């Protein structure tokens, strides 16, 4: 044995430490493997739905309803998308006043008649601060939605009809359910399958605040607007319908 060679006691010590280290690594590996198996195999059916439900949002994009035309191609009923701004006003007057102050930057987009005095008389309720916003305003209000609680920029379809009472009776009416316009009487009901179109479907992952993570967008079905339908009637001369 040379002078540099370790003594038996030193070798035993190194072996002991190495064995202990190996034991720790193996134990760590076993714990991780068992936990992974537990999560991915045995508790998968319980964990995964909750995880997916909170991380993945699924939604629809309502389709624009088709137009009703007369025999000459003039529009009798049509839909337009309307962007609006709603706000659930805080219940407390102090909170409401503070939130109203935060909205100063965007008040130019609000409809006339809204002031702090009016807001304080409607605490705890939902009001529409602006109707018929243009897309530029919608983009500008993105920051506002993240700044003030309860503020929502949303859109809906509004159905317009020809003004003549006789034509309106023939056209019938629509109601809005889940963002989709559904014909409930007259030609709107008779041709509902053609007019209603197909809503788009998507999934997207969201963060814990519900904000979209754009990279994770998946389109499940493209949105298809409804077809236009021509009716065998003629609108009264001189009364213009829609676009």
């Amino acid at each position, binding site marked *: 044995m040379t002078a540099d060679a370790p003594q038996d006691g030193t070798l035993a010590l190194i072996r002991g430490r190495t064995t202990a280290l190996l034991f720790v690594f193996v134990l760590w590996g076993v714990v991780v493997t068992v936990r992974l198996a537990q999560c991915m195999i045995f508790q998968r059916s319980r964990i995964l739905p909750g995880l997916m439900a909170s991380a993945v949002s699924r939604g629809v*994009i309502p389709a624009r309803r088709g137009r009703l035309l007369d025999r000459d191609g003039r529009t009798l009923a049509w839909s337009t998308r309307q962007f609006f701004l709603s706000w659930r006003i805080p219940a407390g007057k102090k909170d409401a006043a503070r939130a109203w102050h935060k909205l100063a930057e965007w008040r130019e987009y609000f409809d006339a008649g809204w002031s702090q005095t009016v807001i304080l008389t409607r605490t705890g309720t939902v009001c529409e601060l602006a109707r018929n916003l243009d897309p530029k305003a919608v983009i500008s209000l993105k920051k506002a939605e993240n700044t003030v609680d309860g503020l929502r920029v949303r859109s809906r379809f509004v159905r317009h009809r020809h003004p003549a009472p006789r034509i309106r009776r023939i056209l019938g009416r629509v109601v809005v359910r889940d963002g989709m316009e559904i014909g409930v009487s007259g030609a709107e009901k008779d041709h509902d399958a053609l007019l209603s179109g197909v809503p788009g479907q998507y999934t997207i992952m969201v963060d814990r605040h*519900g904000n979209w993570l754009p990279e994770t*967008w998946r389109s499940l079905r493209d949105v298809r607007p409804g077809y236009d339908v021509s009716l065998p009637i003629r609108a009264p001369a001189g009364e213009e319908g829609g676009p």
Partner: protein
Amino acid sequence: MSINPDSERWKRRFVLCLLFTLGALFLTGAREANEGFHLRPARRAAVSRHWQSLASSLIGDRPVLEHPRAAELDDADAVWLIQVCSRPISGGP
């Protein structure tokens, strides 16, 4: 196996292991890296076009921005407009 220190031998083993690991990483990661560097921007551009097209179709013919040069939406604005026009039916916190 003896653990009697033979530093040269252990060095050779370490270098071999390192080379093997690097080689494996290179081979398995090359394809993914290639996709990341070359395919992802193209895919992202396609998604971006999809968002802009969808947002434009959703808002109809209404001009979004006044300045003609700014007529194209950026991705964030397009996604925001899609979000405003859509309705979540399930999921989310």
